[in-house]
C-alpha cells in the first residue's frame, strides 16, 4: 500500500448512497420495465435474475446464506430451460445463478461481471430499461466499484433518467477518488457535464473542464474527446461558432477514425451545420453516417436530420429515400412507445421541410399510437405538431438553398 492509498484509507469520505431506481423510473415494483421490454419466458427469467441479485446485495453478509429457498436453484434452472436464451446471455444468467446460497464476496465479483454482460446484451438489443436495471444490479452487487457505478450512470442517462444519472455519476466520483481510479473519475465528470448541459450550461462547462484536466493527468484520450465533444455542444448552443469549430476538430482528432463516439459527434456537427444554414455539408455528413449508424434510435435520428437537410437543399431523391427508410424503420418498431416517438420526430422534420401532408399523416399516427399506449405527454406533443400542420408552414422553397438538381424543377413541396 502506497502512502497515498494509506492516507485515503484513513480519510473520511462522503460516499453517496446508491439510488432507488424504481421510484425514479416510475416502476410499480422492481424490474417491471423488463417485463414490458422483453415479453415471455425470457422476460420472467431476466426479471427473476435481477431481483435475486438486488435482494442478495441488500441483505447483510451474515444473512445471505439462508436468503433463498432450498428449491430456488431448481426453479431458476426451470426458468432457464423454458426461456432458451442465446449462448451469450445464457452463460451470463447461469453465472448470476451462483448468487443463490452464496455468501462470499468472490461470487459478487463474478456476478457483477455477469450482470455487466447482460447490460451489453440489452444494449445490443435496444432494451434501455433492462440495461439500466442490470447496470443498477451490478453496481449494487459491487458497491465499491467505480466502474459499475459509472456504467449505471451511463445507462440511466441513455434511458433518459437525468436525475438518476446524476446520482450515479456523483457516487462514481466519490468511489473513484477513494480508490484513485482516475479514468472513471474523468468519465463521471463528463457524464455530469452532459446531465447539466441543458439545465445549466455554465455548470456543465465547469465539469467538462475538470474532466479535461483529469484526462490530461492520466492520458485518457477517448474521455478527453468526449469532454471536447461536450464543450462543442455548449459552444454550438451558445452560438460561439469559432470556438465550436475548434472544439469539434479537437474532439474528432482525439476520437480517431474508428471510435464509436465519432459518429455521435459527426451527427451533432451535421445538425449544427444544418442550424447554421450549411445544409449541403450537413447532408453529405449525414449520408456518410447512414453507413455506420445502424442501431434503430441513432439511425432514426440521422434519417430525421437528413429529411430536413435534403428538403432545404432541394434534393428530392435524397429526401424521398430518407423518408422511406425512416418509414420502414418505424414499421419495424411496431406499436411501441419508441414507434410513437419516431413518428413524432419524423412529423416535426416534415413540418420543418414544409411537407405538411406527410407531417399530418405521421403526426396522426403518432397521436393514435400514443393514445393506444396511454402516453399522455406524447399525445400532447403529437397534437401540437398536428396543430402546426393545420396552421401551415412557410413553403420549403423560401428556405431552400440553390441546388443544381432542383433549380430546374421549381418547388420541392
Amino acid at each position, binding site marked *: 500500500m502506497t502512502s497515498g492509498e494509506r492516507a485515503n484509507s484513513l480519510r*473520511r469520505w*462522503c*460516499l*453517496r*448512497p446508491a*439510488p*432507488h431506481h*424504481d*421510484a*425514479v423510473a*416510475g*416502476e*410499480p*415494483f*422492481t424490474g*417491471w420495465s423488463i*417485463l*414490458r421490454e422483453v*415479453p*415471455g*419466458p425470457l*422476460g*420472467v*427469467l431476466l*426479471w*427473476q435474475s435481477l*431481483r*435475486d441479485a438486488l*435482494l442478495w446485495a*441488500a*441483505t447483510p453478509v451474515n*444473512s445471505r446464506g*439462508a*436468503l*433463498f*429457498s432450498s*428449491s*430456488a436453484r431448481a*426453479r*431458476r434452472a*426451470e*426458468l432457464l430451460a*423454458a*426461456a432458451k436464451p442465446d449462448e451469450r446471455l445464457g452463460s451470463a444468467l447461469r453465472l448470476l445463478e451462483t448468487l443463490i446460497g452464496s455468501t462470499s464476496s468472490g461470487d459478487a465479483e463474478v456476478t457483477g461481471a455477469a450482470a455487466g454482460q447482460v447490460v451489453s446484451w440489452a444494449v445490443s438489443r435496444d432494451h434501455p430499461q433492462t440495461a439500466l436495471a442490470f447496470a443498477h444490479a451490478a453496481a449494487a452487487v459491487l458497491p465499491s466499484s467505480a466502474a459499475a457505478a459509472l456504467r449505471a450512470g451511463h445507462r440511466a442517462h441513455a434511458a433518459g433518467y*437525468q*436525475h*438518476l444519472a*446524476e*446520482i450515479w*455519476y*456523483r457516487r462514481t466520483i466519490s468511489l473513484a477518488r477513494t480508490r484513485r481510479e482516475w479514468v472513471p473519475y474523468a468519465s463521471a465528470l463528463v457524464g455530469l457535464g452532459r*446531465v*447539466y448541459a441543458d*439545465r*445549466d*450550461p*455554465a*455548470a456543465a462547462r*465547469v*465539469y467538462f473542464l475538470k474532466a479535461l484536466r483529469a484526462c490530461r493527468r492520466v492520458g485518457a484520450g477517448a474521455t478527453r474527446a468526449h469532454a471536447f465533444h461536450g464543450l462543442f455542444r455548449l459552444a454550438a448552443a451558445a452560438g460561439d461558432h469559432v470556438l465550436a469549430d475548434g472544439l469539434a476538430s479537437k474532439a474528432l482528432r482525439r476520437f480517431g477514425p474508428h471510435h464509436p463516439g465519432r459518429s455521435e459527434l459527426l451527427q451533432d456537427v451535421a445538425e449544427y451545420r444544418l442550424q447554421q444554414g450549411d445544409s449541403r455539408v450537413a447532408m453529405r455528413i449525414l449520408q456518410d453516417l447512414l453507413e455506420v449508424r445502424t442501431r434503430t434510435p441513432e439511425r432514426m435520428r440521422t434519417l430525421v436530420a437528413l429529411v430536413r437537410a435534403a428538403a432545404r437543399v432541394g434534393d428530392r431523391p435524397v429526401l424521398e429515400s430518407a423518408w422511406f427508410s425512416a418509414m420502414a424503420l418505424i414499421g419495424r418498431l411496431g406499436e411501441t412507445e419508441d414507434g410513437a416517438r419516431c413518428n413524432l420526430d419524423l412529423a416535426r422534420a416534415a413540418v420543418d421541410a414544409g411537407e405538411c401532408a406527410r407531417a399530418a399523416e405521421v403526426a396522426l399516427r403518432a397521436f393514435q399510437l400514443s393514445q393506444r399506449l396511454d402516453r399522455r405527454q406524447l399525445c400532447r406533443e403529437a397534437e401540437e405538431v398536428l396543430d402546426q400542420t393545420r396552421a401551415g408552414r412557410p413553403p420549403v422553397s423560401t428556405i431552400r438553398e440553390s441546388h443544381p438538381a432542383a433549380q430546374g424543377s421549381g418547388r420541392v413541396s
Partner: protein
Amino acid sequence: VKQPARPLLVLHGDPTVRDRLRALTDAGYGYEEYADWAALSAGVHDAPASAVVVVDPYFPKGGLAAELRELLFRYPSTPVTAALEVTADRATDLWTLGKWGICEIISVHHDDTKEAILTRVRSTHARKLREAIAAILPPETGGRARAIVDTAAELVASGADSSKNLAVALQVSRRTLLRWTVLAGLPPPRKLLAWVRILMAAQRLDDPDQTVLDVARAAGYGGDGALRRVTAKLVGLSPGAMRRRGAFAAAGARFREALVKHGRLHLTSQGDSPAAASIC
C-alpha cells in the same frame, strides 16, 4: 412522536407462506389473516393507513382475481404485495399485476424465506410515498436533493426519522448532511423530515375512509392535536381544510414553495451565481 405496530393483512391459500408471514410478528408487524376477498377489503377499510397487505393474486384458484383489482382501485395508497409462484408462463400476469398497482412480488418457493419476505415487505413501506414526492419536486431539483428527499421518505415511512438516522443512511456526518441540504436548496434535515412526515400524513388524508385521528397515529403523531399543530405551522391549514382542498396537492404546493424559498435564500446569502450553486 410514537410509532404504532404495523398491521400485516394476509389473504393466502398456502399454509407455508402464511406461517412465514406470521413469523414477521417479531419484526414489528401485527399479523391478521383473512379468509376471503370481502373480509380482506373490510379489513383494509378498518386498518390504519400504515397497514401492508400480502395476497395470493390467484385466490381462491384460477386466473388473476378481479377482487384484487377492485381492492387496488379502492385503496390506491395501501401497499399490496402479491405472493405467487413465478413460472415461465406468468410474464403477462406479472406485467398485469404491475399495471393494477401491486407494489412488490414475493416469489413462492424461491425467495419466500423469512429474511427475503421481510426485505420485500419493508421495501413497500415507502414506495408510494417516494413516488408521490418524486412527482411534486420541481423539475430543476438536482440529483443530490432527490437522493436526500428519497432517503428521508424511506426513514419517515419506517418510523426512524431523525436527522441522525438520515445522516447515517446517507453515510455522512450530521454536519456534512446540513451542508449538503443547504447546497441542494433543501430545508435543514429536521425540517425536511417534518415536511416529509406531513406529506405522508397528507397522502393518507386523501383517503376519505380514514379519520384524522387514524391518519395522525399512522403517521406517528401523538394524536390529531399534534397533527393539527404541525399542519397549521407548515401548511397553514387544518387537516380538515387540507382534505377539502386535496390534502397531498395542498401540502405538496407548500413544500414546493418552501424548496424554492430555501434555494433562493441560499443563493442570496452565499452571493453565488445559479450556475455555481447548481454545481454543488
